[in-house]
């Protein structure tokens, strides 16, 4: 599994499209209202939004990811880094931020590759 991280608008999606030569329709756009992971796509964009959906629907994100990665061991997960900034006043947002952090730590450990984008420039962290 490959993990692509970085701040908002830093070129994560462009990197995946160009680096792995994939088309837009191969990408699953996660949203904060759906905690299901796709059954037919191995590239997930906005994983941080999906984590929010899990939180709202009280589902175990790590458990769902484990099942998903068994089906797609070569998945590409794209996640916005939401960890740098002032601690948000809203407790829900605080919990979301921490949940994303926990997920990313576990995913990083299991990833074959971790790439971070900064102003469009990729840096291989793993």
């Amino acid at each position, binding site marked *: 599994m490959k993990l692509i991280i*970085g*701040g*908002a*608008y*830093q*070129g994560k999606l462009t990197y995946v499209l160009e680096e792995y030569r994939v088309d837009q329709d191969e990408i699953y756009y996660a949203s904060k209202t759906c905690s299901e992971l796709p059954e037919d796509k191995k590239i997930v964009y906005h994983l941080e939004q999906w984590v929010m959906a899990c939180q709202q629907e009280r589902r175990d994100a790590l458990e769902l990811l484990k099942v998903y990665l068994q089906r797609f061991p070569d998945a590409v997960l794209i996640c*916005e*880094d*939401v*960890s*740098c*900034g*002032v601690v*948000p006043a809203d407790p829900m*947002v*605080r919990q*979301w*931020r921490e949940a*994303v952090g926990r997920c990313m730590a576990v995913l990083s450990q299991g990833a074959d590759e971790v790439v971070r984008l*900064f*102003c*469009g*420039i990729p*840096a291989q962290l793993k």
Partner: protein
Amino acid sequence: MKVFISGGCKNGKSYYAQRLAKEQQKKDLYYVATMRPGDEEDIERIQRHIREREGWGFTTVEQYEDVDQMLQGCDPQGSFLLDSVTALLANEMFKGEEVNDAAGDKICWDLLKVMEEIEDIVIVSDYIYSDSIVYDPLTEQYRRELAQIDKAAAAGCDVVLEVVYSNVIVHKGGELFETNHWRSLSRKTYVCP
């Protein structure tokens, strides 16, 4: 050389950018001031920045918008410091009654035009893309357009640096950066006095 620097706020990137601009000075040294003073707080901040630059030999060029005009009256052989893209975008976006949706594109073009005409420039921006606050659409638009300018500027620069609490991470042009005459500056950690 063209250097792009970004990072979180209040971590010393302006000071570091000043040193880089000074270091690569061959002839004149220019500070492109972009912040349009709005209130007392702005005026105070500007005064503080002016004090910090005192004695460095910078000629100040005030360019709040239309950054492609910044070279008027300047020697293109000079060393330029543009601080910051963040202020430029705010000025361009909110200069009229309505929000200017073309501001990001315009600044990209203006900057690339300037960068074609000069050799040495340090461009400063602010990294505002990694927090967990859910923003209103206008702020989100501002973030998206600033990132667009950052990516274009970073692509056009020889060296791209991130400053994280006084630690410098080199994202592009590492070899150039290390072997250049800025050896004294290329230490990964430095302290702003």
